[in-house]
Every structure is written in structure tokens, then in C-alpha cells.
């Protein structure tokens, strides 16, 4: 093929030349060109290699249905594989490269696969590569993987930004061709909020590609005027470069706006692309139709092109894709191409019309321009290597001729672009009169289909349809459609040309041929879905937009069924492939999820804290000091400070729920397995909450601040889940109760102040505001202290005398700083964990959703005096099984050994098999007080086995460690330190 730029015309800006390169060679195009049109204008015909056989391929279409012309666009971290040259708007400095070829596009060693094509038929891999079995992963598969794939991913983090946005409208018009423009005009003029989205950068659709007339104007001019009017209407939003790619439930449409893809790099702070979620009361699908190829030998050779695409290149881009053209048509469409080629001054070698009865004016046109016309003839083969040199035809008399040409325009009829109508499960319907599938009656709610997409191919019908449906969506009277010039589209379907030479491709990109379809039929893969999966027909990056119907029609013929009965495969979102980065938007790196910081975070950071993730929270893990060599040294110091003096820990991340109302106490009795309605005002109680299925859900303390006012603490991890649970209980199970719950986690800053000196420190802090000594163990008080409301609880997780002090979040940082100034040592989650293990308190690794209250030694908390969530199902035999692993403490027999969570218990000497496993280690810590590692675990019959020696089996890490089973409370079992 040797395309060239026409001297005039086209919607390109010849005053703005743009330089670009392909495979390193420099070229020039103009603003308004796509990469495909610019390459064709520069005479580049070979642009790609196919997936399996590495066949040379050229541009076939002028739109997003392109199966062949895929390139790697841009370089480095911005490299985008499999980019359709037909949709890339060129910019100055654009760099593109061909893909899936080695060493070069012109000479591709992979083309040897074509010689092996008798072996590499559809599904050949299912039949071989099985012997010897070990060879699959080592030999066959690596070779297949290397050969497969098309372009190369960048392999580097995407440097660009992406955004997400929401839009709401009365009418969403999908597609800005004649029907879509008409629909948008009708809707927009009524004042309805209207969005018109088109994937192209230029509205007008086929009006830009054809020489059509509307209201005695060129179609393209009418489109430009319509766009100008739409732009002037106040409630109309024009969205060019925006592809509506998915239809979802609730009248939600997903669209991708290519904000900066037509630039070398996005402007500063601008996204590359924007994902739109559009809520549309009504939508008009005006997605047009896609011309289908014809299936004949060598139909994939560069130079064979869709006849409609040829017109688009001639009229919109002012590019002649070849110097000597032949046109192969099964209907009137090809004759439009003939006329446009004549108009552009391109030599026409022949017109091959498969029909016998050819309209007089077509014959007259051919005669007037001295064009050889073959009626009732078909193309049976193509000649040429990497470019078309000639086509072989079989004329009506059966004679064979060879016609030299470098461009073959093929018009096989049109497939309405039904994809979006099927995303919610709608089945397309077969229309024999147009030989195509149109959207069926089960459309997505609110959707109407206009124009060619609905099978109405004539321009006048498209406009009328658009006006009618745009008006109907807004309940207004449709404007009168303007007069249109002649436009006839008829096609006699021709699914396969018999007796042709060479490979007849059905799916270009995946190299699926008519023989593959026949083989699938022979092997029983006759359902269109089996055909797709067996041959990969329609599974390429174009989702079979050009290929599917031809393949399905071939299958219909092979199985003696009609096409309607054979059916078609469902289209899946997205309509065209969408960058994963765009779907993720800004949620990546540190912004993947919100980062929650406590009120005193800044102070902890000042103190040099190392932070750890706790869900979305960052919590101080420990506070290293100069000279400390590792985390353990810091943690040990912190524990000793608490046990010997006083420490402070930021516990603001614990969930806090305000519960108020006359039925608050009933709600707590229902939610907790132990009794709360008897709790006195001014007191707090430890509570355990079960799930409905009887397993432990969460634990925490709840204090009663007034007769109808409780405040609940949850674990950090379960804060949201407990809130959800309480809301479910009161709204669904007990709607008659008068009780309200509100999450107050972020309203308060809370600190545990623990250690023998905690009382004195707090008294120093609070002065006359509160008598700390008067607060009994498990007491709770609320009082004012200067400007702050303070809640003080006497609770202990560490086993020391301890308090939890809460102030409104805005005072949190100052409070923590003040308490540290008074001599408290800040400690983090590690020290917290050490001390709770020393005291045998359960936490996350024990509250893992698989344990019962009894497993955790808390069985006696389950009240027998009241009902509570989980009571009934906790009584199931499996939950009461005495063999269930239950909480124990562990000490290494060799006190120098480290313990870790995750090992399994075996009796010493028992074989390491699962039948001998008796539980596992849940949490481990180094106890500074005891001077060795300790751990908690869940062991079968654990409470009755204190003193036994067991093996902790941990083949993944440390191997085996002998441990002594003991009481889970390692320190101060009498609890005397609580009152120290």
C-alpha cells in the first residue's frame, strides 16, 4: 500500500504540522490526524503483526473496533501496549512502536508459525504438550508464555494522575453521530440536563466520514453547527474524547474521559484520564454500526481495508490509503466508496460486486469513469507479501482474474453496535432484513436506541430517530427533521466466499480462520460460547467487534441452524479496554486508603515514635530513645517504666460508642453476653459480645455515666463492626426500643495512664478538679476541668493500677504532652501487648472469630439470667465440645528460647501430622519481669494441662520448641497491683 495525503479537504489543520515517529522513523502529520491516518498519509501500510501467526497487518478500520493496528504508544513508564492507532490523536513528538515482532516489524521470525499453521489450529494445545508431565511448567509453558501476549507493559509505576467524577443528567446521549446529535438537540432544547458523550475527539460520527447532505449543507458542516448550538444551550454538557464503556444497575453509566491523551504529557496537576460515573434518568444509545469484513483467502493482507474506513480516510483525513484501488462489495455501501475514490482522484482498478443485479446508476457511474465492473463476482485471494499487490477474483462465469491494486476496500454490510444494550443481560435480536443483530426488547432501564445502532441505516432515519427519542426522553414534541440527501445502505449477506485460496480470517487479531470455526463445529464446540472459548474468536482486545457475527454465521451454516437460533455471545463491560489506573483513580500509594491519625499523633511523632498500621490508623508502636539498639530494648524499657513508675499510652483508636435512651441498658444486655442493666451509674464493666452464631465477636468495657447514658469501648479492629451490629440490633431486631447509638471514636482523645504512680500523677494533673483517690477500681466519672470535659475511668489492661482519661479530641495533644511533662513514659502498642500477655488478657490473635467465650476462659461470663445475642447457637455441641482448644500460658522449657505466634502444639515425640496437632500459639512476647519469652495459646483440654510439656511445632520458622503449659496469667494472679 502506498497511501498519500490528498491536496485538499479533510478535517485536519494543515497549518499545524506535527512530527511523530513510528519504530524510530520520523514522520509528519497534521492536527486532526489519528496515528493511523498519519501513517497512511506517509505511505506506511505495514503497522503490526498478528497474535499467533505473526502475519503482517495493516490498518483495517478508522475507529475503536480496529483489530490490527495495535502499537506500543509512548516510552518508558508511560508505555501503553496494544494501543489502537486508529483512535490515537497525534501530538508533536509522539513516539509509537510496533509490537509482538522480533527482530523487526518487516522481518519477524515469529512468522514461521504460519508455516506450522496446520499444527497450530484452534485448541491444538489441549491436544498435546502433555508428555512428559513435568515438561509443561519447565519447557512448553514458558515458550508459550513468551510467544503470547501482544505489547509490553511499562513495568514501571504509572507516573500520571487519574481522577474520578460524578455527573447527573436527565438524558445521556451515547454517540455523537447524526442520531446522537439529533437526540441531544431535541433533549437540550427542552431544557433538560443533557450529556452528549462521544469517544472521538470530533463530534459528527459518519457525517465526518461521508459526503452526505443535510438541509442542503455538507453533513460535516451540519454537525459542526449542531455542536455549536449544543454548546450554547445552558444545560447541555458536551463530552468529546469520552467513551461510555459500561452500563450498570441503577441507571449508572461508566465513562472514560481522555483528558490529556492527546498531549505528550498531562499539564501539571491535570489527570491523564477521568472516570465518570453518570447517573442518567434516560439514555439514548446512538452508537452507530460497525462495518464487517468479508471472509476470503488472504483477507488480512495490509491494503485490505473496510470500505467505510476508506471513505473516512478520504473525506475526514484527506488521505488516500492507496494509489490503485479495488472495491469489493456486497451492497450499495461499496459504491459510496467508489464515488469517493473517484472524487479524490484515486485510480479504481475494478469494482467487484457480489450481487448480480446491479442498480443502473452504479453501472452508469462505473461506465462514466471507465471502471471495470464485475457483477456477481467475488474476491478469492490476495497477492503480495507485506503489502497488497493484486487481488484474485472469480467472475460471474467462474473465470479467474487477477487485478493489480494496492488497496482493496471491502464492504460486507453493517453490524449495529449493540454492546452497551447487552451489559445488563439484554439479548440482541436477529434482523434478517439488515442481516445483523439489533438490541432486543430487554434494554437497560431508561435506555432507547437510535439510528444505525437500532438497525436504521439511512441518514434520514437516523436524524428522525434521534429527534424522536431525544424528545421522548424529555416529554417534548420532536423537532422536524431536516431534509437529507440520498443515502442508501443495503447489503446482501455473504458470510464466506467459497473456493478461495489461502487463510480466510474471521478474527484478525487472534488469527481465527474459517477452518478453525469448522474444526470447532467438528469437535462439538457448537454453542457460540464454546466456539469463543475454543477458538478464542472475539476474545481479543476488540472483543470481536468485527469478527463475531461472521464467526457465528459460519457456525450457523456448519450446523444447519439459522443465525437467530445460533445466537451471539454477550458483550462484557468495558466496551473498549480501559486503563486500570483510570478505574483506580487517585487511590494508590499512600492514598490507597485514608490514614487515620489520633489527636496526639504529632506529639508521639515528636517523641520519636515508630508507628504501625492498625487498620486505617497509625499507632505508636514504640518510642525508641537514643542509644537503644533494637525495638525489644525500647519495649522492655517502656514495660519496666509502667510496672515500676507510670506510663502513658494513646488508646484513642479504640472504638467508642455513645448509647443513650431509656432502653440503653436493654440494648447492652442484648449485645453483651454478661449483665449490664445492673451496672451502677459511675461504674464500668468488662463485657464480651458474641456473634449470632455464638462465637466471640469483641470485648471491651462499657461505663454507665447516667441512668440512660452508657459509653462503650470496643477494640480498634472491630469499632465499625460493633457499631454496625448495635445499629442492626436496635433498628432491625428491636425497633420498638427507645435507644440511640452514635460513634464517638474521633470526638475523644483517650489515654491509658498506668503504673503505681498513676494516681499521684493524675492528681497532680487535675488538682482540685477531681479527687482521683476517690475513684474505685472499675469506677467512671465525668467532670469539667477548666475548659475541658473529662471522662476518667479506672480500668487496667496492663495489670497495674491504671486509668483511662478521655478529653475532647482538640485537647488530646496538649493532655498527652502535659502527662509526659509530669513524668509519665510514653509506651506503644508493643509494650501494651507485652503487658496484656503477661496478664493473660485476650486480644486480636485470640479474638479471631473462631473462638468461643469458653475457649478464652470467659465462659462463666455468659449470663444464665437473660437472653443475649449468640446464646442459643453458643449451645451447639461443636461449640461446647470439651476437646476444643482453650486458653493457656506457655513458657519455653529452655528459658533462652524465643516464642512466636503461629506454631502448633504436639506432644513431645508425636509424629508431626495434623492428627496429632492440639492447638496453636496465638501471641508471644518477651516478659521483662520474668526475663524470658512467654506466650498464650489455645490447647485442647488446656486448662487441665498446666504443668505439662508440649512441643511447639513451627517448621516454617524456628523448628520445634519445648514449652511448659501454665496459667495464662503470668503476673500478679491475685490482682494486688491493681490497687497498689
Amino acid at each position: 500500500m502506498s497511501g498519500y495525503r490528498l491536496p485538499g479537504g479533510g478535517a485536519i489543520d494543515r497549518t499545524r504540522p506535527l512530527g511523530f515517529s513510528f519504530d524510530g522513523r520520523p514522520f509528519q502529520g497534521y492536527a486532526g490526524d489519528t496515528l493511523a491516518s498519519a501513517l497512511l498519509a506517509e505511505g506506511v501500510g505495514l503497522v503490526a503483526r498478528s497474535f499467533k501467526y505473526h502475519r503482517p497487518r495493516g490498518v483495517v478500520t478508522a475507529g475503536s473496533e480496529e483489530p490490527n493496528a495495535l502499537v506500543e504508544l509512548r516510552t518508558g513508564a508511560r508505555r501503553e501496549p496494544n494501543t489502537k492507532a486508529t483512535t490515537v490523536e497525534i501530538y508533536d513528538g509522539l513516539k509509537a512502536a510496533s509490537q509482538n515482532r522480533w527482530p523487526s516489524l518487516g522481518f519477524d521470525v515469529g512468522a514461521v508459525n504460519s508455516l506450522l499453521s496446520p499444527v497450530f489450529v484452534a485448541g491444538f494445545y489441549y491436544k498435546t504438550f502433555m508428555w512428559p508431565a513435568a515438561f509443561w511448567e519447565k519447557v512448553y509453558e514458558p515458550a508459550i508464555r513468551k510467544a503470547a501476549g501482544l505489547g509490553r507493559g511499562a513495568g514501571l509505576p504509572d507516573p500520571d494522575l487519574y481522577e474520578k467524577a460524578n455527573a447527573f443528567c436527565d438524558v445521556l446521549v451515547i454517540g455523537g453521530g447524526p442520531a446522537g446529535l439529533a437526540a441531544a438537540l431535541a433533549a437540550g432544547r427542552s431544557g433538560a440536563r443533557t450529556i452528549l458523550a462521544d469517544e472521538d475527539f470530533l463530534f459528527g460520527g459518519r457525517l465526518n466520514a461521508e459526503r452526505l447532505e443535510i438541509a442542503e449543507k455538507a453533513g460535516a458542516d451540519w454537525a459542526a453547527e449542531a455542536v455549536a448550538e449544543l454548546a450554547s444551550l445552558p444545560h447541555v454538557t458536551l463530552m468529546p474524547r469520552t467513551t461510555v464503556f459500561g452500563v450498570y444497575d441503577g441507571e449508572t453509566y461508566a465513562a472514560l474521559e481522555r483528558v490529556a491523551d492527546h498531549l505528550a504529557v498531562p499539564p501539571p496537576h491535570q489527570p491523564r484520564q477521568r472516570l465518570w460515573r453518570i447517573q442518567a434518568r434516560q439514555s439514548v444509545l446512538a452508537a452507530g454500526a460497525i462495518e464487517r469484513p468479508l471472509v476470503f483467502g488472504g483477507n488480512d493482507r495490509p491494503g485490505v481495508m473496510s470500505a467505510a474506513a476508506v471513505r473516512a480516510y478520504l473525506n475526514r483525513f484527506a488521505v488516500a490509503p492507496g494509489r490503485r484501488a479495488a472495491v469489493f462489495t456486497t451492497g450499495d455501501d461499496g459504491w459510496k466508496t467508489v464515488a469517493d475514490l473517484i472524487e479524490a482522484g484515486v485510480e479504481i482498478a475494478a469494482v467487484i460486486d457480489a450481487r448480480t443485479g446491479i442498480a443502473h446508476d452504479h453501472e452508469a457511474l462505473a461506465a462514466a469513469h471507465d471502471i471495470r465492473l464485475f457483477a456477481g463476482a467475488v474476491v478469492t485471494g490476495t497477492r503480495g507479501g507485506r503489502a497488497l499487490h493484486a487481488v484474485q477474483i472469480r467472475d460471474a462465469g467462474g473465470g479467474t482474474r487477477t487485478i493489480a491494486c494496492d488497496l482493496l476496500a471491502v464492504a460486507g454490510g453493517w453490524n449495529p453496535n449493540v454492546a452497551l444494550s447487552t451489559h445488563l443481560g439484554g439479548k440482541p435480536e436477529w434482523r434478517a432484513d439488515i442481516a445483523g443483530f439489533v438490541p432486543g426488547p430487554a434494554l437497560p432501564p431508561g435506555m432507547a436506541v437510535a439510528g444505525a445502532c437500532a438497525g436504521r441505516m439511512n441518514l434520514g432515519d437516523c436524524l428522525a430517530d434521534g429527534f424522536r427519542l431525544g424528545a421522548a426522553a424529555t416529554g417534548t414534541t420532536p423537532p422536524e427533521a431536516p431534509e437529507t440527501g440520498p443515502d442508501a445502505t443495503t447489503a446482501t449477506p455473504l458470510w464466506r466466499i467459497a473456493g478461495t485460496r489461502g487463510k480466510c480470517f474471521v478474527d484478525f487479531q487472534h488469527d481465527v480462520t474459517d477452518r478453525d470455526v469448522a474444526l470447532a463445529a467438528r469437535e462439538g464446540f457448537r454453542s457460540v460460547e464454546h466456539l469463543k472459548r475454543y477458538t478464542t474468536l472475539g476474545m481479543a482486545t476488540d472483543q470481536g467487534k468485527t469478527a463475531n457475527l461472521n464467526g457465528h454465521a459460519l457456525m450457523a451454516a456448519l450446523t444447519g441452524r439459522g443465525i437467530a437460533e445460533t445466537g451471539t455471545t454477550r458483550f462484557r463491560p468495558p466496551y473498549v479496554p480501559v486503563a486500570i489506573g483510570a478505574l483506580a483513580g487517585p487511590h494508590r500509594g499512600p492514598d490507597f486508603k485514608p490514614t487515620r491519625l489520633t489527636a496526639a499523633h504529632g506529639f508521639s511523632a515528636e517523641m520519636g515514635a515508630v508507628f504501625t498500621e492498625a487498620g486505617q490508623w497509625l499507632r505508636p508502636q514504640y518510642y525508641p530513645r537514643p542509644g537503644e539498639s533494637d525495638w525489644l530494648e525500647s519495649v522492655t524499657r517502656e514495660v519496666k517504666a509502667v510496672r515500676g513508675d507510670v506510663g502513658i499510652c494513646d488508646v484513642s483508636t479504640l472504638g467508642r460508642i455513645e448509647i443513650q435512651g431509656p432502653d440503653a441498658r436493654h440494648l447492652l444486655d442484648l449485645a453483651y453476653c454478661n449483665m449490664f442493666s445492673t451496672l451502677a451509674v459511675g461504674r464500668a464493666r468488662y463485657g464480651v459480645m458474641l456473634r449470632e452464631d455464638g462465637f466471640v465477636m469483641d470485648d471491651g468495657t462499657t461505663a454507665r455515666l447516667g441512668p440512660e447514658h452508657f459509653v462503650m469501648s470496643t477494640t480498634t479492629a472491630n469499632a465499625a463492626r460493633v457499631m454496625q451490629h448495635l445499629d442492626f440490633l436496635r433498628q432491625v431486631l428491636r425497633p420498638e426500643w427507645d435507644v440511640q447509638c452514635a460513634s464517638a471514636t474521633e470526638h475523644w482523645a483517650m489515654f491509658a495512664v498506668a503504673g503505681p504512680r498513676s494516681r499521684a500523677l493524675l492528681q497532680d494533673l487535675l488538682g482540685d478538679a477531681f479527687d482521683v483517690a476517690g475513684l474505685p477500681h472499675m469506677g467512671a466519672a465525668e467532670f469539667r476541668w477548666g475548659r475541658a470535659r473529662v471522662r476518667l475511668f479506672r480500668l487496667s489492661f496492663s495489670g497495674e493500677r491504671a486509668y483511662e482519661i478521655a478529653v475532647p479530641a482538640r485537647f488530646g495533644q496538649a493532655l498527652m504532652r502535659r502527662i509526659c511533662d509530669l513524668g509519665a513514659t510514653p509506651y506503644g502498642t508493643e509494650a501494651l501487648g507485652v503487658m496484656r500477655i503477661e496478664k493473660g488478657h485476650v486480644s486480636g490473635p485470640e479474638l479471631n472469630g473462631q473462638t468461643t467465650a469458653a475457649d478464652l476462659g470467659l465462659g462463666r461470663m455468659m449470663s444464665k439470667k437473660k437472653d443475649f445475642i449468640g446464646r442459643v447457637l453458643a449451645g451447639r455441641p461443636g461449640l461446647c465440645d470439651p476437646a476444643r482448644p482453650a486458653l493457656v500460658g506457655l513458657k519455653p522449657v529452655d528459658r533462652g528460647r524465643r516464642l512466636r505466634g503461629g506454631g502448633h502444639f504436639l506432644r513431645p515425640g508425636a509424629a508431626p501430622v495434623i492428627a496429632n496437632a492440639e492447638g496453636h500459639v496465638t501471641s508471644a512476647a518477651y516478659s521483662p519481669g520474668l526475663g524470658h519469652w512467654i506466650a498464650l495459646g489455645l490447647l485442647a483440654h488446656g486448662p487441665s494441662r498446666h504443668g505439662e510439656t508440649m512441643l511447639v511445632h513451627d517448621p516454617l520458622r524456628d523448628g520445634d520448641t519445648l514449652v511448659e503449659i501454665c496459667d495464662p496469667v503470668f503476673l500478679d494472679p491475685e490482682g494486688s497491683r491493681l490497687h497498689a
Partner: protein
Amino acid sequence: MRRSIFSLALNALTGHRLWRPTWRDAVPKPEYDVIIIGGGGHGLATAHYLANVFGIQRVAVLEKSWIGSGNAGRNTTIIRSNYLLPGNNAFYELSMKLWEGLEQELNYNAMVSQRGIVNLYHSDAQRDAYARRGNSMRLHGVDAELLDRDQVRAMVPFLDFDNARFPVKGGLLQRRAGTARHDAVVWGYAAAASRRGVDIVQNCEVTGFIRNGDAVVGVETTRGSIRAPKIAMAVAGNSSRVAALAGLRLPIESHVLQAFVSEAVKPLIPGVVTFGAGHFYVSQSDKGGLVFGGDIDGYNSYAQRGNLPVVEDVAEGGMALMPMIGRIRLLRSWGGIMDMSMDGSPIIDRSPLPGLYLNAGWCYGGFKAIPGSGFCFAHLIAKGEPHPTAAALRLDRFERGYLLDEKGQGAQPNLH
């Protein structure tokens, strides 16, 4: 014709005209020894093992559409046996062993590819939980390794190690895990079963059960009545609806799970990687597409489609984990319907109705279980008692409280 390099070569020389249908597209007979409802992976595997291992050949597989049209064709093709609980692990390991010999057994290349799975951990607590799981695997005789951050980095260097919201601290690796070509599994089992005389009946939807008192003795279908003394359901995704035809209410909710595939690109990702701080897992198919998924949509549904929030959530997880995929494009997404059970584990058991057998509740782990499920279900049907490795997968475990809750989420199906 037996599939081999020789038969392929012979056919290559003769225009591939000698191949015959991979399975017989049978017309239903009035009576069989066993009727299997559901021509997916589980149903066809059950038929194969009944016919080829347990000697029961008068078997029909009834499929309402085309075989493999349900979840067998809608999954992310991962196979693994990295389970924690004894009731599950041995079963999935049986399945894994069957995968390892599948192609030779079926004479069909299902592309079982053991390229490994690594489950990432992001905290000390998660590391210990994975250690517990990995140690349990080792106690079951299953391979498992606990990797630290550097070992993970050596294996999958393209993860976001330096700028992540939830830094990767290590991973649990099962090297024998991997993927298989999902459709080929269906076709391979169909071929092997059909060769032994099993009738595979497509476009045959069960519309009711024929009863004799409590007992189920046959089915009404869109292609007529068919009788058999043993009727086996393997219709995960539709279990609650089919069971309702027999008046049974199962401890199952139906949920949508979406799956995704990208455009084909040259090899980037060696094995399977799962994100431990978000809902995302990914592998790369032999054709080059990144195959990935995430969380279920969360609401009850029978529609085989999902919605945009989860599409975005999955993409966010992917970009958080491996920001190199930003410019790779999503090609297709689709939804499958999951039988989500009350503890996240499946059911292979007799039903309360004599003659009716139940294979259900696969949640979103059904694909990897196909061989094991088929084998154990066939064992149950043929011998009248559960296979030892599937003995815990009983229907009454919910009533008795012997749950198999790997994630500890409780009886909330959309959290498993």
C-alpha cells in the same frame, strides 16, 4: 481419537478432518442409575469419577445451557491447597494431587501450571496468622514457606515496596499452587466421562423433582421426565433455587463475584499474588492477560453481573499493590453467582431427602476444588458414605456447630 502429538500430526496432514466431537451431545434417556444436575466442572468431574473410578456408567449430566456456562467459565482459574483448617486442607490437597495428574488421566491438556501463589502479609499479626496456616499445611504434608520482605521482593520486585499505604512485610508461599485453563477442565472431564458412556445433555433444565414420598426418584426437565434412584445436585450459584424445587432451604446465600481480565501483554507476573491489605489477587494467563479479582459485590443476587463500586475497589487494590499496571487496560469483566455458605466452606453430603445428594456452597473457591469435589461426591454417591477427606463438609455441621470458618467471619456469608 486419542489426543497426542501423533494424532495432531496426522490431522495436520489431513486437514483436521478426523477429529470427532469432544463429547457426545446426548439425547436424554428415560432412566439412569445416577442423574447429575449441572454440567459444570463439579458435575462433569463427578460423572467422570463415577464412570471411570467407581464403575457406574449409566449416568446423565443435565445442563440447562452449554456445559461450563456457569462458574466453571467465570472464575480466575486459581488452584491451591493453602488452607488452615483440618476439615478443609486435606480435601483441597486431595484436589491438588488430582490436578497434578489430571492431564494424563483425562488425556486432555488443561494447562495445569504450578507457578506458585504468594499471600502477602502487611502486619505482625497477619504474619503469625499465616504462620499458623502454613504450619498447618506442613502438618498436612502440603508445601508452604513463609517469606520475609526481601524474599518477596526477589520474587515479585514490581510490587509497591517503597510507597505503599500498607507496606508488604512478607508472604506465605505455596509453590505447588497455580492456575489451570478453566474451560479445558470442563471439556477434559466431559470427554473422559463421555468416552465411558456418560450422557451429557445440554439445554436441559431441571424444572422439578419427581417424588415417591420423601424420596426423590427423578427430575422433570425441559426435555421430559428422567428417572434415577440417585440424583446429585452440582449447581453452585443456583443451589438455593434448585433445592427449592425439592422444598429444601439451604444455609446458602447467592452473591455476585466479579472477575477481570486485561489485554494480553508480554509476561510480567510469574505466579499468583494476593494482596493482604485490600481485596485484590492477580495472575497472568498463558495468553498474556492479567486475570484478577477482589471482593464480592456484597448484596444478594442471581444476576450474572456486578457493579461499578467493586470494579473500582478491585482496580484500587491492584494499583496500590502494583502501580506498574496503571496503563494496562481492563479488557473484560464479568460476574458469577456464588453459593456463599454460612461458614465459607462447601457442602458435599446427602440431603435430608432420600435419593438426593448435595454438592453446594463453594463460595468463591469452587474452581480449585473441581477434581476433589468430583471424586468425593462420586464416592459418596457410589458408596453411600462420605470420602474420608470430605467427612467434615456435612450439611448438619451448622446445626451441630462443627463449623469450617477459615476466616472467622461467622454466619455472615458476604464476609467469607
